[in-house]
């Protein structure tokens, strides 16, 4: 089933300067989509449009078969969660507890049920010991975990990660990635759209969407997209480490075409 369908989307912040040009694509339920491209290629704008944070100018967005309009935006928004890049600027509550509660309050969840929900989702991201801590006492990774809990608590069907790990250190990045995979495992119907610069993450996703200058440059499974390495090089996009290595080895007439991972590569080289 298609959970998200974007048709002929064009958008610009200024007239005659479109950031997105006539974009169309569909996303199936339960998929892990990686949205890649350079800074300024329109990725974040696309995410904001899908989440209903920007007004549509031309083209349509359908969420679960329903056309996104001014009227149903608040209803459809409940199905879409978004985790932003800056850990500080999306922490709204005074403490972890209050921050997770914020979305619940907006959704008019009765007071009696809140504590149970807060505890449940804080546990999912391992933040139970920090419930009464203020954001200044938390690391960037911990703040992003709270943001994830806050979004999950609202029970969305699609979650967008807008470079959610870009400002974190390697440990924080790894943690967040693990939590994303864990929640995907717990609920297979959950659809994830990850805007990322991490080419390895894109390589491990279900589907890759490459945006360049506001247009869809490539689209398909990672195998399909990364097979076309010359096309990716054309727009100067990074390749996964394994592919770069294979590429360079092939240039030296070392045949490693069929290997699927680093282990196989090492074995093949040492044959």
């Amino acid at each position: 089933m298609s959970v998200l369908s974007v048709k002929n989307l064009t958008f610009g912040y200024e007239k005659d300067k479109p950031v997105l040009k006539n974009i169309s694509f569909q996303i199936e339920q339960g998929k892990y989509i990686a949205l890649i491209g350079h800074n300024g290629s329109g990725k974040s704008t696309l995410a904001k449009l899908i989440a209903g944070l920007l007004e549509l100018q031309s083209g349509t967005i359908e969420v679960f078969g329903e056309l996104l309009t001014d009227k149903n935006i608040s209803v459809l928004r409940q199905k879409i969660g978004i985790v932003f890049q800056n850990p500080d600027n999306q922490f709204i509550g005074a403490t972890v507890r209050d921050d997770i509660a914020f979305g619940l309050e907006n959704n008019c969840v009765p007071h009696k049920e809140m504590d149970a929900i807060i505890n449940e989702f804080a546990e999912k991201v391992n933040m139970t010991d920090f419930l009464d801590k203020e954001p200044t006492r938390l690391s960037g990774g911990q703040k992003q975990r709270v943001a994830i809990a806050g979004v999950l608590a609202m029970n969305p069907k699609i979650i967008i990660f807008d470079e959610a790990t870009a400002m974190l250190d390697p440990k924080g990045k790894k943690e967040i990635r693990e939590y994303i995979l864990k929640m995907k495992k717990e609920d297979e119907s959950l659809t994830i759209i990850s805007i990322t610069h991490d080419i390895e993450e894109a390589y491990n996703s279900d589907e890759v969407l490459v945006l360049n200058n506001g247009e869809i440059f490539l689209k398909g499974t990672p195998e399909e997209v990364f097979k076309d390495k010359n096309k990716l090089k054309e727009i100067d996009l990074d390749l996964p480490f394994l592919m770069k290595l294979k590429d360079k080895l092939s240039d030296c007439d070392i045949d490693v075409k069929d290997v699927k991972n680093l282990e196989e590569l090492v074995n093949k080289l040492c044959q």
Partner: protein
Amino acid sequence: MPINFDHVFYTYSKKTPFEQVGLEDINLSFNDYKFIALVGHTGSGKSTLVQHITGLLLPDKGVVHVDDYVITPKKKENKNIKKIRENVGLVFQFPEYQLFEDTVLKDVAFGPKNFGVSEKETIERAKSAILKVGLDESYFERSPFDLSGGEKRRVAIAGIIAIKPKVLILDEPTAGLDPQGSKKMMQLFCEINKNGTQIIMVTHDMDLVLEYADHVLVMKDGKVAKESSPLDLFSSSDYKELSLDYPCVFAVATELIKKGMKIDLTKIKNLDTLVEEIKKGRDSYE
């Protein structure tokens, strides 16, 4: 430039419930290295350490020597700090947030002007710094606030380069940039380094450490946990205990060696040198 730390201690939020160790008994001296990498987990004291080099933080105890200048715990004794800052340029993390003038040229000229460089030379230095970071003349009169994130960062870095420091400290200069942007940024630093500016770089990216640094310091809980060449660091048996990443090329090379391939680890810096060594290793098989 010789930089020495002599029993330096620093504590954050002293005498409050939020007290936190910043530095604990740091003894260091680096003079001869050209490119020093400073690694360690968040909160290990890397940024605290570099802020001591330019006197942005004063030690609670101990002394920091920078060239002929001395930084001591007492505020009143540190009259020469401005001189140190002219010689040691510090680029903070996300430096694009420090821009404030209405044109790029003015903003880059701000630093040299503050250090008393003549008007004429200031403009010259600013112009050449902007060109050096890879922006062209058309940027001179543009507003820094209209630029993209990557361009803003270049302008901010130009603002420090224009001061012509002998040492350039970079606090995670590639954080938040896309891969293409980071690559260009590193090429820039490499060039500056080759032209004789010593670089101290705080980073989490071990690939960069292996490729560029000739010396590496590992910080942990406010102390220096390890100090060596990158190769010695990554090959040491206790590196694993620091729970830091391995550079990708290094990991592949060690796997190959384990499987019996002859590879000279000292030669491996990046992907190209790795492939080179693999070729040699395979040739020796046949």
